[in-house]
C-alpha cells in the first residue's frame, strides 16, 4: 500500500489471513495490482476542502478501515469511489480502469449505507434480491442467491420480514447481504456500526471481519472509532482535514505514527511540552522538545519491589485513580505534569495522594515534524511493552 507516493510495507506485519496479490518492487507493476486506486483526488464543497491530494491504493482482498474524526473527509472518499460524488480532479481506478465517468451502478461495487437505506416497504428477501432483479437475473437464480445470502447472514428465518420488524444488528446484516448479492468486486461500508448498540456492535465487528475474509472481497469501511478500525481492518488509512495522514497496518500506525495528528488520534496520548525534564531523556538538538506519553509507555509502582529498574524511575504523586473495568486508570503527577498510567487490578490499589514510582520506558517525540520513539537511556535494555 502506498501513500502519497511513499511506499509502505504492509505485507509483513499483519498476522491475519489475507488473499492479497503480492506487490512487486516496481511502481508500475504495483499500481496494476491494486483493486482500487485513488490518484491526486481533490474535492471541494464551497470553501470546504473535503479531499486534498488524496492518494492511496488497495490490494485485492484487503479489508481497509478509513479512520478519521468527523469532517476529515473519509465518507467523501468512500462516496467518490462509489460514484455518489464526483471528484473535482484526479483519477479513481477500479481494477486498473478509470471509473470517474462511470455511473455508480456500473462500477461493480456494493455499498452499505450508514443508516442502511433498506427499502422499507420490501421484505428482507426483496431487499437482497433487488440488485439482481435490476440486472434482469432469472427468478430461480435470484431465489438461489437470496437463500444463500440469508443463510450467510443467519436470517433465513426472517426472510419475509420487513426492515421495520428487525433489530439494528439484523438490519445491518441485511444491508450487507443486499450489497453483496450482485457479487461486486468491491464492498464499501459507511460507518457500518454507528447505528448499533454497544454490545451488538462488538459481536458484529468480529462477524463482519470473518465473513469478509471468508469471501475474500476487497472492502473499505469508514469509521471514526479507532478501536473499531484497529479491531476490524487489515490496514488503516487515517484522514484529517481532507488529507491522508498515514496508512499501514494497525500495529505500524500505533508504533510509528508519522505525524503528531496520528500520534494524538491513535491511543490515549498525553502531551508533554518538554520531555527532557524526565530522567533518561536528553535533548537531541533543537530548542523545543515536545513529546507524547501513552499509558503503556509507563510503569507505575508503589515501591522498589514493583518496579524493575527503580533507579531509572521518577517520583510521582497519585492525583486520581479510577476503576475502568479491566484495570485502574491513574493520573500521576511527575515534575509538575499529569501523566496517565494503567495499573493491574491484581496489584495493591493506589489512592489519591499516594507517592509512587513512575518508570517512563519510551516517549514519542516530534522534533522537526518527524515522529520518533525515544527510549529511556537510563535503562540498559529496552523492554517492549506492546
Amino acid at each position, binding site marked *: 500500500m502506498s501513500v502519497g507516493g511513499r511506499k509502505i510495507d504492509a505485507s509483513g506485519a499483519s498476522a491475519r489471513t489475507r488473499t492479497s496479490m503480492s506487490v512487486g518492487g516496481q511502481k508500475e507493476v504495483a499500481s496494476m495490482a491494486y483493486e482500487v486506486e485513488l490518484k491526486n483526488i481533490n474535492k471541494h464543497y464551497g470553501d470546504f476542502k473535503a479531499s486534498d491530494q488524496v492518494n492511496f491504493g488497495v490490494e485485492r482482498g484487503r479489508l481497509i478501515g478509513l479512520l478519521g474524526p468527523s469532517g476529515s473527509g473519509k465518507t467523501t472518499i468512500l462516496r467518490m469511489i462509489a*460514484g*455518489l*460524488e*464526483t471528484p473535482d480532479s484526479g483519477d479513481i481506478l477500479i481494477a486498473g480502469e478509470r471509473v470517474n465517468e462511470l455511473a*455508480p451502478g456500473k462500477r461493480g461495487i456494493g455499498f452499505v449505507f450508514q443508516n442502511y437505506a433498506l427499502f422499507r416497504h420490501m421484505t428482507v428477501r426483496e431487499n437482497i434480491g433487488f440488485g439482481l432483479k435490476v440486472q434482469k437475473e432469472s427468478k430461480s437464480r435470484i431465489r438461489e442467491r437470496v437463500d444463500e445470502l440469508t443463510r450467510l447472514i443467519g436470517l433465513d428465518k426472517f426472510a419475509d420480514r420487513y426492515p421495520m420488524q428487525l433489530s439494528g444488528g439484523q438490519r445491518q446484516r441485511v444491508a450487507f447481504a443486499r450489497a453483496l448479492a450482485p457479487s461486486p468486486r468491491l464492498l464499501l461500508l459507511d460507518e457500518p456500526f454507528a447505528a448499533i448498540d454497544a454490545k451488538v456492535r462488538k459481536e458484529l465487528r468480529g462477524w463482519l471481519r470473518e465473513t469478509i475474509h471468508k469471501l475474500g472481497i476487497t472492502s473499505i469501511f469508514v469509521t471514526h472509532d479507532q478501536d473499531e478500525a484497529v479491531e476490524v481492518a487489515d490496514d488503516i488509512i487515517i484522514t484529517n482535514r481532507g488529507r491522508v495522514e498515514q496508512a499501514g497496518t494497525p500495529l505500524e500506525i500505533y508504533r510509528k505514527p508519522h505525524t503528531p495528528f496520528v500520534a494524538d488520534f491513535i491511543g490515549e496520548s498525553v502531551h508533554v511540552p518538554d520531555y527532557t525534564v524526565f530522567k533518561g531523556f536528553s535533548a537531541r538538538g533543537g530548542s523545543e522538545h515536545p513529546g507524547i506519553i501513552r499509558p503503556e509507555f509507563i510503569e507505575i509502582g508503589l515501591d522498589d519491589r514493583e518496579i524493575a529498574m527503580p533507579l531509572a524511575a521518577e517520583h510521582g504523586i497519585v492525583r486520581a485513580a479510577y476503576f475502568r473495568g479491566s484495570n485502574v486508570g491513574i493520573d500521576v503527577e511527575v515534575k509538575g505534569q499529569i501523566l496517565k498510567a494503567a495499573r493491574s487490578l491484581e496489584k495493591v490499589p493506589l489512592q489519591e495522594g499516594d507517592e509512587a514510582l513512575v518508570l517512563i520506558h519510551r516517549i514519542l517525540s516530534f522534533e522537526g515534524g518527524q515522529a520518533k520513539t525515544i527510549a529511556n537511556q537510563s535503562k540498559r535494555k529496552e523492554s517492549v511493552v506492546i
Partner: protein
Amino acid sequence: MGSASKVIPGYRFTQGVTFFYISLILLLPLAAFVLFATGMGWEKFIGKAFEYRILHGYLVSFACALAAAIINGIFGLILAWVLVRYEFPGKRIMDGLIDLPFALPTAVAGIALTTLYVETGWLGQFFYAIGLPSAFSVLGITIALIFVGIPFVTRSVQPVLKDLEPEIEEAAALLGAGKWLTFRKVIFPELTAPLLTGFALAFARGIGEYGSVVFIAGNTPFETEIAPLLIMTELEQFDYQAAAAIAIVMMAISFLILLSINGYQRYRIREQGV
C-alpha cells in the same frame, strides 16, 4: 446547473417536465399579464387603481379579511388545543370536519351561508332581531371569510402543539408555575410562529376570496363591494386596464402579507434560534 453529481437518475427529465409545465401554465399567463399591465403607463394605472369606489373595495376586502383572520386565529388556536390536548367523544369527526372549507366548493358555501344569514334565515333572524344585518353587509362578508379561513390556523398550529415536548411543561410545573402561567409563558410563545403563518394564509386567502363572498356581500357600491368583485365588474364592462390595475394592487397586498410573515419567521430564527 448544479455542481454535485447526479447519482439518482431523472434530473434532466424532471427538470424538463417541471420547467416546461411552469412556463406554459404559470409564466406565460403571468408574462401576458405583466406585458399588458406595463403597457398601461403610470398615470393610467394610478387613475384606474385608486379610483374612489375601488379604494373602498380594497378597504372592504382588507378589513373583512383582517377581522375574519383574527377571529379564525382565536378559534383556530382553541380548536387546535382541544384537538391535541383533550380526549372526548366525537373528536375524530371534529378533526375531520375542519377541512370542510377546503373540500366544499366556495359557491356552495356562498349560497348556503347567504340563505342562513338573510333576514328570514335560520341564523339571520337572530341577528336582524338585534338590529344587525347579517347578510348583504360587511358582517356577512366577514362571516363568509371566517368560513373559508377556518382550516388555516388550526392546521398550522396543530402539528407544532403535538410535537411540543412535554418536558418543557413539566419543567415549568416543577418550578411551580400554574397552568395558565405555563400556557402564557411557555406554550404560547412556541405557538406564535405557526399561529402567524396560519393567520397570514387565512388573511391572504380572504383578500382574494370571491366565490363564497359574492352571494352574501350584496355588492352595493361604496358599501359591500370587494376587490375581486370589482375586477369582475370591470371585465364585464371590458375595461381590461382597470381590471389589471386592481389585480396588481391585490397581488401587491397579498405578497406583502406573505413576505412580511416570512421575514418575521426568518428574523425569529436568526435572533432566537427558534
